[in-house]
């Protein structure tokens, strides 16, 4: 688990970048290790009580928001999202998909991305075959999506957590079809819609920030396409992404907006101080997604439920309708 304070490889096998800020990280880790230990004990108690992870009770939701321990993650993700139940209904689906004849172009497209997926992860070399299998199986299972760049990062991180192809496949299917449907399809309609929704939300919550971003001329598609397509994988620090996914599998797409808004609102001042589009773009490439705020995942996860304030599903759906109309014309 997370105890690699002094290593240049993190607990998930990722090589830390050369400019990695060990000081910030150590400060955060010294308190986060305590959190992890405490959560582990709490979850063991929960487990001993035979808690049904497929029912999102208030208690379970609260526990999940505070982080699922590594040892329980796969099971909880599978059950709380419904992926497990789907798998039970079609236990042979995955292996059958792998027996089929593969489409050549799809194989090509996936193969191009294999060496480009987590080259900085020391365990990943041996997982390339598994990653290929999951991506090719899914591409054939869902022809509307096929292979979409970005799924390699989602499936890759799922593999690092679950270690196995089957749960990776079922969780990927859950994300692509239920949590963020039509983000990854050939026309990416809902991705374009939700980028417009994010912009509307920023306009509502921090209008001066939206104005500034607009005036400098950095489109939200540049800022946030990868946020949504990859559900923050290969964007935010790994531990933060996993904490986000804990909540995404339990509570759904709303979490993604909460994260997006929080990232922007929490960096309001530096964004407003950027006086040029290149400075702003650099902020979104570095400090905003890799800095102290994004690294301190425990605090960050508390903040996503505070900083954006009320975010009602009904309001979001209404915004989505408005934005889909606008993007269609």
């Amino acid at each position, binding site marked *: 688990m997370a105890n690699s304070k002094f290593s240049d490889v993190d607990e998930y096998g990722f090589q830390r970048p050369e400019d990695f800020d060990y000081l910030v990280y150590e400060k955060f880790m010294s308190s986060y290790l305590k959190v992890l230990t405490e959560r582990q004990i709490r979850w063991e108690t929960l487990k001993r009580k035979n808690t049904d992870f497929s029912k999102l009770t208030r208690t379970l939701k609260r526990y999940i928001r505070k982080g699922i321990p590594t040892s329980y993650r796969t099971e909880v993700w599978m059950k709380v999202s419904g992926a497990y139940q789907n798998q039970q209904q079609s236990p042979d689906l995955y292996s059958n998909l792998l027996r089929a004849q593969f489409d050549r172009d799809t194989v090509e497209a996936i193969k*191009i991305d294999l*060496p*480009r997926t987590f*080259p900085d992860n020391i365990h990943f070399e041996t997982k390339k075959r598994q990653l290929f299998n999951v991506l090719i199986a899914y591409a054939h299972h869902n022809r509307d999506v096929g292979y979409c*760049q970005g799924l390699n990062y989602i499936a890759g991180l799922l593999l690092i957590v679950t270690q196995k192809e089957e749960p990776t496949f079922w969780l990927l299917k859950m994300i692509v079809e239920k949590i963020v449907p039509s983000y990854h399809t050939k026309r990416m309609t809902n991705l374009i819609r939700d980028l417009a929704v994010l912009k509307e939300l920023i306009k509502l919550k921090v209008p001066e920030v939206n104005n500034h971003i607009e*005036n400098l001329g950095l489109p939200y598609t540049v800022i946030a*396409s990868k946020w949504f397509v990859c559900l923050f994988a290969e964007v935010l620090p790994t531990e933060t992404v996993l904490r986000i996914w804990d909540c995404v599998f339990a509570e759904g797409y709303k979490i993604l907006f909460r994260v997006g808004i929080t990232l922007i609102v929490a960096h309001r001042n530096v964004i407003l101080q950027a006086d*040029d*589009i290149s*400075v702003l773009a650099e902020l979104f490439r570095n400090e905003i997604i890799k800095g102290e705020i994004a690294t301190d995942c425990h605090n960050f996860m508390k903040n996503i439920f505070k900083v954006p304030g009320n975010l009602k599903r009904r309001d979001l759906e209404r915004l989505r309708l408005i934005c889909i109309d606008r993007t269609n014309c």
Partner: protein
Amino acid sequence: MATTPRGGGTAQRPNGASQNKICQFKLVLLGESAVGKSSLVLRFVKGQFHEYQESTIGAAFLTQTLCIDDTAVKFEIWDTAGQERYHSLAPMYYRGAQAAIVVYDIQNQDSFQRAKTWVKELQRQASPNIVIALAGNKADLSNSRVVEYEEAKQYAEENGLLFMETSAKTAMNVNDIFLAIAKKLPKNDGAGNQGSGQGRRLAEVEQNRQTNNCCK
């Protein structure tokens, strides 16, 4: 020696006593996935090359300034995602662009065909005065080449494109292609020029952006 690529992403005014003009141009990179668009940008802006450059999702934005004699030419570079499905987003990047680099991989015939399609789309949809350059990238791998230099050269001439074979890996022709574009772009005196295809002064560019970036 008139060219000096400048590092960093900030918009400082290039120093140097004789500088009296700064022109800013919007440049877009287009081409199939994995032909090396991001690698060309990384080489040009940071002087680096990554063997495992990650695929671009959505688009990326970077800047770099070249100096030609007394003029600082600042490129605002929009590096797009190559996968077909991201193309619905592409028009917002090439709209209003004064320059484009359409990239193919000399080892891949399909990527050359795709480049031609991009050129057609730009000629139809982008600003009429856009300067288009064709880059046959991965020239360091010429022993597995399938697209002949002469063939691409001829196509480029017929279509009025700048053309170079490049290598982001060895840096061959990378600065040169940006420089060739910079030279071809009109650099009228700063004040008050509004015509499309012109390098505009910063303040005007800022204003125009607001109309360029509405969501489509």
